[in-house]
């Protein structure tokens, strides 16, 4: 999604400190100070106005209420998310989880998503559009149509549609 937004002409707030690797060959598009939001690191917000920045859902609740935000919330089949994370952990030399623990993680992430959705629904300063990752891969034109209306940007262009690469969709649940 970050690449799509980049191609659509939005300025990204990213420091490229985290380099592309086997797990994410196209890079992470992250901004390191974001990861310290929970500890009160918010000075970077001033330079973020009008830009797109990647934030994991875990940190959304730390967004200050004094700003307005448009959130593109990427949803993905949770067993796939856990499998993908396990693979990343293993590539980093960390231990993954067993299948029983995977079930627990799916349950926990699911409860978290539910709570986050509720929180987002209650924030008058945040507009949210939910984008299903799996559906985006299957039907990019239709799915991006929703984001197009949300951002007021033209996304249904060949150079943007070509960014959605089914080959990057490796980590199906159970695979």
């Amino acid at each position, binding site marked *: 999604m970050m690449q799509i937004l980049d191609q659509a002409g939005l300025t990204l707030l990213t420091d490229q400190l985290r380099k592309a690797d086997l797990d994410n060959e196209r890079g992470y598009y992250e901004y390191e100070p974001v990861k310290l939001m929970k500890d009160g690191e918010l000075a970077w917000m001033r330079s973020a106005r009008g830009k797109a920045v990647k934030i994991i859902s875990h940190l959304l609740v730390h967004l200050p209420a004094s700003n307005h935000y448009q959130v593109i919330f990427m949803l993905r089949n949770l067993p796939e998310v856990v499998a993908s994370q396990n693979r990343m952990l293993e590539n*980093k030399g960390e231990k993954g989880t067993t299948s029983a623990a995977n079930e627990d993680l799916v349950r926990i992430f699911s409860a978290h998503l539910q709570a*986050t959705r509720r929180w987002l629904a209650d924030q008058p300063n945040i507009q949210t559009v939910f984008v299903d990752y799996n559906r985006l891969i299957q039907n990019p034109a239709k799915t991006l149509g929703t984001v197009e209306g949300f951002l007021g940007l033209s996304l249904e262009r060949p150079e943007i549609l070509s960014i959605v690469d089914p080959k990057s969709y490796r980590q199906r649940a159970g695979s």
Partner: protein
Amino acid sequence: MQSLSKVFVIGLDGVPLDLIEAWIERGHLPRLKSLIERGVTGKLKSTVPHTSGPAWSSFMTGKNPGKTGVYDFLYRDKDSYSFLPNNTHTRGGKAIWDILSEEGLKVGVMNVPMTYPVAPVNGALISGFLTPYYAKDYFYPADLLERLEVKIGQKYYVYPLETFNDSNPQAYFDASHKMLDMQTASISFLMEDLDWNFMMGVFFDTDRILHQVWHYLDPKHPMRKQDAEIDKSGPVIEYFDHLDRCIGQLVDQAGPEANIIVMSDHGMGAAHNMITLNTWLLNHKHIQLKGSPFTQLKRILFRLGFTLRFSHRLLALFKLEKHAEYKLLYSADKILKKVFLSFNDVDWKRTAVYSVGRDIGPLFINLKGREPLGVVESGEEYTRLRSSLAQAASAMTDPKTGTKLARRVLFREDVYTGPYLDMAPDLIIEPGDEDVFYGLSDFGSNQVYEPFYRYSGMHRAHGMLVMHGPDFKTNERIQGAEIIDLAPTILHALGRAIPDDMDGRPLTAAFKHPGDPQYRAVAQDRGETTQDSGYSHEESYDIEDRLRKLGYLG
């Protein structure tokens, strides 16, 4: 606006006004009689559905389930076909004790269902029903439990110690009496300990007793075929007489300046038959099963009667019900799903409709874009399917008598409004008075319609409301009161402005000098927990560790 300083709410879970008034007429319950004669009394309409999860959530927030998101004890998980217990993290809207705490009023809250995990209040809170059985963090502040237990001279416990068994009913009633004393002493302790403005305690055993031994009060109940001529009501009335004395003691302790509200979240009546909606949907091919040999084997066993109902018979046979009743509540679901025919066996890509929930018949359409493996397109296909289901449900009949089983069929937008409307069932089938929709386990029985078991009583839509105190009228009846009206009524009684996002209205007809209720605009009611991550403390630690290792957190 009033400027009163104290409101004391006594919750009696699942008690209908008719029953209380009938016993008063027979010379019982003198303290409730006195409150009724010197107060304002009426029936209190519950939520749809009239079950404790949504009803108490709507009581504490003054909002309909479309705004609390609590439609049952469980909520439909958006990312799977599993259903998880609701708790304060999953509820939308602030509880009245949170609003009062923010305004600096002192509150004490004991045993109100759906209050775990506990959030800090300006006072004290002990959570009630749906507190995890082994939880140790069900109270606030941290030193409360220790001080309480020293004062009452015993261990505090959330759940009853005995489950009803017809072979030894006395053990069950003895345990209920002991719990009643323990809870009364605990509320009494909170009243002593706090310089309170708002105090509330719920007696949940009233619901349990009426569920389990309604047939003791009703000689014509099908469960009384053997001994219809014997009057078995004695132990039940004895419990309620004891409760009446406890209410009297607490009302006296609250003092003459306190406004008292005795209320119940829903009513109760006889339960004769149960309807298993998923079995009905399976028979009508709205639910399709997987073709795997294991599922097919389970289906054969299901047809032969290997169901949850069968397992309950086994538990009863080995007298293990009390271990199952609370300790295994919902946590056993995973095992049951593996053993019995369940949603694990459903082929969701060929399934159009399913049901989850109890009492009323909730139907969910397997909608594309909402359910993870949705197949029904929104728009015309959804509308057409919902209408045909409504027709089919309206035509359901008792195979023996031909009587229609659905009192009415509702579309969700007819009942609810609010940001959580999308979590509501698409269709709600309300059963007749003595029928119950059976929601335990996905396919709890292989029969669509059959005699109910385990419980002889089941919920009704109307509970009771008695309001007594210096600012309420005397010897009056009130009509049309709803459970969502109580939060705004309490705020009004305490001289506080009512958030304008509450759906209930203050029951001004009950006040001697009602004044003009004051409202305040609420830009955002985040609820006490909406900033929460949705993780428990332990889970939060594990997840953060994982996210840090993945490079997502600093």
